[in-house]
């Protein structure tokens, strides 16, 4: 998806601005000095493995976590202020719904919690049901819905007050591919309306499809930030990635891969090469070292490659 034109905006009017955010839980530093800006109409992806600090960062943005240092502001307001809460919509990772209430009743409840009443509430509920394609299921109790429908209702409940900024915390967890596509379409519709979004995921395909810019987060730090192409360019420039699977991936193979400047992850060696001609040299060296190759392939670097290059680990670890 092409990036929308980003105009220069005074920092106080940015949809979301995080500066020097630190959050510790005992000895664990979940968020470690994060500085980040979300521009108007932008979809910013937060990409990182489980436990990287994505959810803590999101909860800080919603004002549900008190940071040890740093600030979070929504259109210039502190994250825990009423103004920020009304401007922000949050789709939590958990299915935060009232299971025995129907879709409509759930939306009405969350709408009322946001101060909606009367015709405004009715219109908001109708819009959400339509957006989530749940109009036909409006009278169905939430616990009777399929997994994908529950996810869509969960998203709709976060949008009932029509916020200007939306935080989506892994909204596709546990969803089948068909439902995931439907969710992507819903998000793309919001994006097209110019809503600013932060989207966390540990699926690089989602980040590549939906996000204008991507922040890669690991161990509570933003280790890279930019568009997909910028990230790949900064990590690989014009180089390519060669993947090699060995017949046996023992310690001697790991040592050999490391010696050749590669990374061994889950039995697969990753090498960065400037030219395809380097492949022959690697094969020859492997044969001389006595390591039998089972399979090799060449691929254009993607976000997964970037993450591996930056952290030495795969995204789904």
């Amino acid at each position: 998806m092409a990036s929308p034109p980003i105009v220069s905006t005074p920092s106080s009017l940015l949809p979301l601005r995080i500066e020097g955010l630190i959050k510790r839980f005992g000895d664990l530093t979940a968020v470690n000095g994060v500085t980040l800006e979300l521009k108007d109409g932008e979809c910013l992806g937060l990409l990182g493995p489980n436990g990287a600090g994505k959810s803590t960062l999101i909860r800080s943005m919603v004002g549900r976590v008190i940071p040890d240092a740093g600030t979070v502001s929504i259109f210039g307001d502190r994250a825990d202020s009423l103004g920020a809460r009304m401007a922000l919509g949050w789709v939590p990772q958990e299915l935060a719904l009232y299971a025995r209430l129907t879709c409509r009743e759930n939306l009405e409840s969350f709408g009322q919690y946001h101060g909606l009443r009367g015709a405004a509430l009715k219109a908001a509920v109708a819009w959400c049901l339509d957006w989530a394609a749940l109009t036909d299921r409006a009278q169905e109790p939430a616990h009777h819905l399929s997994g994908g429908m529950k996810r869509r209702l969960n998203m709709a409940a976060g949008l009932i007050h029509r916020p200007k900024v939306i935080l989506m915390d892994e909204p596709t967890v546990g969803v089948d591919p068909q439902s995931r596509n439907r969710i992507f379409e819903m998000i793309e519709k919001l994006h097209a309306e110019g809503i600013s979004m932060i989207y966390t995921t540990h699926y690089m395909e989602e980040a590549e499809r939906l996000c204008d810019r991507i922040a890669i987060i690991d161990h509570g730090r933003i280790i890279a930030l930019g568009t997909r192409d910028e990230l790949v360019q900064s990590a690989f420039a014009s180089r390519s990635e060669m993947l090699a699977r060995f017949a046996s991936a023992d310690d001697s193979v790991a040592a050999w891969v490391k010696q050749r400047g590669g990374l061994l992850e889950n039995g697969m060696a990753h090498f960065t090469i400037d030219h395809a001609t380097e492949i022959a040299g690697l094969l020859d060296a492997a044969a001389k070292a006595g390591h039998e190759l089972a399979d090799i392939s060449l691929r254009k670097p993607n976000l997964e490659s970037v993450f591996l290059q930056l952290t030495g680990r795969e995204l789904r670890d």
Partner: protein
Amino acid sequence: MIFPIVRTALIALRRDRGALALSFILPIVFFSIFAVIFGGRRDSTPKVTVLVVDEDHSPASERLIQGLEREGSLSVKKKPAPKQGAEQKDYTAATAEAAVKAGTAPVALIVPHGFGENPISFGGANQKRPTIQLLKDSSDMVAPEVIAGLLQKVAMTSMPDIMAEQGSKYMDEFAGGFTPEQRKRIDGSLEQLRTRQSAERGGQQSAPADPNRGMPVAVSTRDVVGENKDNPMVSFYAAAIGVMFLLFTASSAGGSLLDEAESGTLDRVLSSRVTMGTLMAGKLCYCSLLAFSQLVVMFIWAWLVFKLDFIPHIPGFVIMGLCTAFAVGAFGMLLASICRTRAQLGPLSTLVILIMSSIGGSMFPRFLMPEAMQKAGLLTINAWAIDGFTKIFWRDEPISHLWPQVLVLLGVGVVLCAIARRLARRWEYS
């Protein structure tokens, strides 16, 4: 195959502290409570309080009262407890009756003028004689019977000379030499006796039986509380059982906070306009409303099925119902805010509520408990709520007399709410 199943179950039980507590601690706690209530220790056997009014001030009446005071199972009170250090006046017939109505004691004895002149019960039902009045609260089915029996015993043991003198007087009067008149009287008495025995054998009574027949002293018993009630214990049990179940309902309803925390809806709600204070106020209203509705249903059922005198007492019921519902609602909120999970809430609430209910009078009337247990019961919501409902439905007291119960229940509710709010801060931010 059986051994691994048992082993797995035992490991699971060992790691479930709530289930462990319910399995081992709760039975011990209950056993201890009921052992104390029913006098497991000799020195804790409850004494029966009796108010005594001496209108006669004769040697006989004084010796009778002294005899009652020597009875180890009685606590005889001739005057109310001192107020702010000032001695109170002796009870009169009127103040003693009022005290029984107010629940100060289950029984009052009034020794009338002329008792010392003619203390012995003899001469048939029509014989005019001074009669000791026993005023009782019929909700206590034990104390009046105990006192009536002890009164007869004390009369015989505390004034044997007077009883002998009175016996001689009657012997002189009725058996002084078998004159024709004496013969006529004896024949008449025998005929009366035959008639009565014949009637009793046939299962019918031609005339009202003399309740003092065969007793040394004449006693007339009168219910001063609940005399017009069709079913004396219904109001007590409606309140007692009702409050216990209200506590269970409120703890379960309060647990919805834990459900919301576990499901994530709490985070979502708190990221809206709703603050923790507003949320807890809403939950408190819900718990209290549910509890009040439960009381309404319970008392209406008691009215329809058990003839509880509900309609005239609606204003008092509403006041007590709302105060009780508020206190139990706050209790439910406190339990929920103490616990980390629903799984913790279940055993803890069961443990606390059953203990509160047992010492607070929901399972066993407090007036039958040892004094120390009765005082301990005042630490529970149950005791204050039951006392309030008893005042309304049993003692027919005016609404203004409910102020101690109302103040305590509201105070308890406010304090529990404040503690719950403080504990709930952990949900506000992490």
